[in-house]
């Protein structure tokens, strides 16, 4: 794995919907390389055949499945009041969230 370039930083920022300033880009490049250098230590370990663990419950096997793994009943329940939710929106017509135009021409 070679180092992160400025081009990589810009590409990842675009993927993450972040707009970095010209000053931020080199700083992020430096920091990412420092952190990834530390993360590279993981390559010292042979993990062939080790399952990838996404959740704690997976490792508890039967313990997790005996407890709390069932889905709840699918039933109609009260939810948040629409007007209370919309009151927190930056722009709304009271029913929907309003956003700037989506299609650029």
């Amino acid at each position, binding site marked *: *794995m070679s180092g*992160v370039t400025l081009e*990589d*930083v810009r590409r*990842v*920022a675009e*993927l*993450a*919907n*972040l*707009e*970095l*300033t010209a000053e*931020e880009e080199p*700083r*992020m490049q430096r*920091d*990412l390389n*420092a*952190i*990834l250098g*530390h*993360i*590279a*230590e*993981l*390559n*010292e*370990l042979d*993990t062939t055949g*080790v*399952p*990838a*663990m*996404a*959740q*704690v*419950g997976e*490792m*508890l096997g039967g*313990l997790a499945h005996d*407890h*709390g793994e069932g889905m*709840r009943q699918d039933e109609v329940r009260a939810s*948040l*009041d629409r007007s*209370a*939710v919309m*009151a*927190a*929106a*930056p*722009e709304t017509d009271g029913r929907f*969230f309003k*956003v*700037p*135009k*989506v299609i*650029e021409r």
Partner: protein
Amino acid sequence: MGVSALDFTIDGVRAAVASGETSAVAMAELHYARIAADDGANGKGINSFLSLSRERAMAQAERVDAAAAKGGLLGPLAGVPVGIKDVLTMKGSPATAGSLILKGYRPPYDATAVQKLEAAGAVLLGKLNCDEFAMGSSNENSAYGPVKNPKALDRVPGGSSGGSAAAVAAGFAVATLGTDTGGSIRQPAAFCGVVGVLPTYGRVSRYGLIAFASSLDRVGPFTRTIKDAATMLEVLAGQDGLDETSSDRPVDGYVAALDKPVEGLRVGVPAEYFGEGLDPEIRAAIERTLDGLKLAGCVVKPVSLPHTKYAIPTYYVIATAEASSNLSRFDGVRFGLRAEEANTLSAMYRKTRDAGFGAEVKRRILLGTYALSAGYYDAYYRKAQQVRALLTRDFLAAFHDVDVIVGPMTPTPAFKLGEKTEDPVEMYLADIYSVAASLAGICGVSVPCGETEDGLPIGVQIMAPHFGEATMLRVGAAVERL
């Protein structure tokens, strides 16, 4: 009652409110007065509270006092002043998560943990400062200014729940709620000289928590004593239909378990937690604690957690990957900040996130996005998940032989404000003893176990298997008695 608010415990406050010796209203006023005197820039400038919920607190205090006057049944937290980390929602109160992107947002609902505390009689004073989106180890990443350590005002309180730890240490609240993703309850508890509990993953509902890394995030209490921590945890724990990851395992009687003797309990000591970089004064304090546990009848023996050195790199891949996904919801559409000058949707997203997020949050989003992006997923994310399994197996194997594992909570005592802000890797290493328990999903607690020569608090960490909180707290109580 004691002469100083620093002496107040949950038990003491509840008993005094029940007997009429004091009132919940008087308790709330006393704590608000201390906050007014010392938390702001005209006092000690501790900066632990970001907002106060006075109206809600006083209404609750009056309800508790009315119930006490009638001689009715009082909840386990009746009249107890409590603060809430600002990543948990309280209906109608600001919820900033320490970020500009949520400035002005007032969520329309309560977090389950918040609701449970209030139902138990707690008086909710307000919201507490933290690192932005709980990302940090010093509370210096808050958009609303750093928190000072009440035990040493030129030092950090730890993070990310720095405000929660500082408020208990400063006497602004009797107990507080924090959250812990990689150490964010236990590390600040150690730095501020209070008790901080990381409950087992799934033990406490996260509904109403502003998510950072969902496979790691947990909600837990800060208190002055282990008994108070047990009381808080008993209130907080349990299944919640609004959090599918919450466990339906019955909740143990944590308070009752504290009275059981610790004789014969097997205490594991991992050599990997006593290596290079551990402050000699902390090492000595932990060794004294272990000697004390031996005298109390515990069987102290070595255990091995061989993958410990890989915990930090593993954590920073997994936590940032999950954060990059979780934080995509902050886009200027539904709540919080929206950059006004953008005239297309995609520009609005980017400008809002650029203006709203601080440097550490951007750094972690970029790292997480990088680790998940095409060509790097297997090398970073999948690899880290595999090492997470190895780290978890370490603990499961060790807990075959011992009931709890005891070691240092932090490699150093609280460091100076500004000391590590320029070097993210050095800052991350402050969590070297906390992240493994986070990745494995087990429970842990930091208990004060002495001070350095300079008077800085030292914390000892006690870890126990999944859902082993009762035994863990029992050992914590034994440490407290040493």
